[in-house]
């Protein structure tokens, strides 16, 4: 496949059972892998916002966006242009940190403004928040010391405030 690219979809849905399964199955049916997914209640608690990062080409993405719109519980979809969006993600990682390495590991965490949330005799659990690229960097740098367990939240994103947000997907709704 050519031109595979991260696309960020921000999908406002009714906060009800089964909605996530409906959304996810539109991707699964086409054999597309969801790169990351974050769901939680939105500004009104009857609604949830789903941030989906998916690697697809432009044409099938347009089709999926239109199909997503057809889901009765989907209220709004925007595709966020990374240049016009604020993106954040959180990582929790337990890293090997024996006596010999501990200093280096702590230093690295401090440089990247991570927080140490638990300390064991030969491991440290760290939390780090920021742009997903920064989290990638952290993962790369810390990996040589040994990552025991790792969990990322998946990215969340909102349009930037300053300018008119460029949302490529359609507004409104359909049948």
């Amino acid at each position, binding site marked *: 496949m050519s031109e595979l690219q991260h696309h960020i979809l921000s999908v406002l849905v009714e906060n009800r059972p089964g909605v996530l399964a409906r959304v996810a199955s539109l991707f699964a049916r086409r054999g597309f892998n969801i790169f990351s997914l974050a769901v939680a209640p939105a500004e009104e608690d009857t609604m949830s916002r789903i941030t989906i990062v998916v690697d697809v080409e432009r044409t099938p993405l347009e089709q999926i966006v239109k199909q997503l719109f057809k889901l*009765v*519980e989907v209220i709004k979809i925007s595709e966020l242009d990374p240049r016009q969006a604020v993106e954040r993600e959180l990582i929790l990682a337990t890293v090997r940190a024996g006596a010999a390495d501990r200093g280096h590991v702590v230093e690295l965490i401090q440089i990247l403004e991570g927080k140490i949330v638990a300390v064991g005799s030969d491991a440290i659990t760290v939390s780090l928040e920021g742009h997903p690229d920064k989290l990638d960097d952290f993962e790369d740098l810390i990996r040589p010391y040994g990552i025991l367990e790792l969990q990322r939240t998946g990215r969340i994103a909102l349009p930037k405030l300053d300018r008119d947000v460029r949302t490529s997907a359609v507004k409104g709704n359909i049948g």
Partner: protein
Amino acid sequence: MKLTGAQALIKALEMENVEVMFGLPGGCILPAYDPLLDSSIRHILVRHEQGAGHMAEGYAHVTGRPGVAMVTSGPAATNMVTPLCDAFMDSIPMVCITGQVPTTAIGTDAFQECDTVGITRSVTKHNELVMSAQDLPMVIRQAFYLASTGRPGPVLVDVPKDVLTNTMDWYWPTDAEVVDSLPGYRPVTKGHPKMIKEAAKLLLSCERPVLYVGGGILKARAAEALRELAELTQIPVVTTLMARGAFPDSHPLNLGMPGMHGTAAAITAMQKSDLLIALGARFDDRITGKVSTFAPEAKIIHVDIDPAEQGKVRRPDVPIVGDCRLVIEELIKVIKDLLGAGEVQADVGPWRSRVSGWREQFPLAYEPSEPGEALKPQFCLEKLRDLAPKGTILVSGVGQHQMWSSQYWQFEEPYTWVNSGGLGTMGFSIPAAIGAKVGHPEKTVWAIDGDGCFQMTAQELVTASVERIPIKVAILNNSYLGMVRQWQEMFYEERYSEVYLSPEVPDFVKWAEAMGCVGIRVDSPEEVEPAIEKANSINDRSVVVDFRVDAREKVFPMVPAGFSNDDLLLPPSQNETRRFLG
């Protein structure tokens, strides 16, 4: 007013003006069958739940109202998957109620439990598991609203047994409350005025336009508007398999059906056109053939109520999202205004003579049988057509007989053709014909079936007999899975693999009789007319005519799957004049 969930369910169906439903009871749905005894709703007890689903579809096809099916949980719900998918593919409004194990047992692998909403999620427009009896009126109203508005489709409501037995306070939501309860569902019905104007201008400027009419025209009840548009602009019309009857076959502008087994005129007109006006059509692969070579010079105006159809297969030059009837009516107004203001339409006269030439030179054709030779299926259809009472509804199964039905019948009125287009469901015709007859008891309903298809759902003729729903069935019996045999003959070097049924068993006449029907067997051409006349004269029970037809007969024209529409195969008798298709 306190009601049980079951009472509320039945009352809600009554409030939705449901006059008939198709179903079969079982453990989890049992509570709902009790208040049904006191209801005005007629229930038709089927012999297999798939039958209930296709009956609901047949009913919806001919009446335009949602068909309703009610069945129990587990195996009954899974038996419903095929009709749901069929209705989803062909945009048939349908509401299906399934029983479910009690809420407390969900997820425990209880007896006859299955994840019905999970299984049917991708074959319904929407589905809902009801967790409280209090929600039932709203959920039922939503189901009917969703099934019948926008792009119609099937909606499933899954109701656990305890939800049926618990009590609730009755209420009936207003239209506004229903709309408010579905904030994500706002179908667009009115086309964008700017787009309509653009379409009008483009339409007037093109010299080789074709109106490419799909099933959406019928869903939008737009047949009259279509006729006005065609006659105003003198643009030739092709009607897809799902749109047969939307435009009279006798009309001089009608070129017939396009697609894999379409007429040479319809296929070629689309290929050579400079503008396709797609109305409620979805550029299905059976229509386009190889997409990259489909109608290469044509600009596209695409009118569809479903925005997801725009650009799905072919990028439109003028996309119009809206209800076909409203959009066409608007389009006619704008065209008249433009013409009134001095704009002139490009001369479509030469194009019309060209396509008429194709139509005359390449009619549907088959070799009639010589005396003593086997009966031709096309001949049977011609006779069925010529002897059919006015307004007859034709229903078909899936296979060669379906294509011949669509080709050789003369459709003059909308809603007289019922078939399974998108899913191509063998076994569709008998139950769908029963549903159609229930919808229009005053009309004659002929089901054309293959011997393969018939054996999938024939037991519903028992339902027809017991419920006194007299239909007529013509089996075009070639002892083969004929359509598959045709592909094996043409594309697998006549290596016939698992397509031969049996000329001896079943004995269709005896089988028909055992189900309470009249059975007639026809072997030779002379017997055809008397048999059809006899069948047409019997109206107190169903009739099955077993036409023993030539197994070697193939459906032509044909565009082999994956080929370009330019490479259509003509009936052998027309091969010599092929060069005139230019």
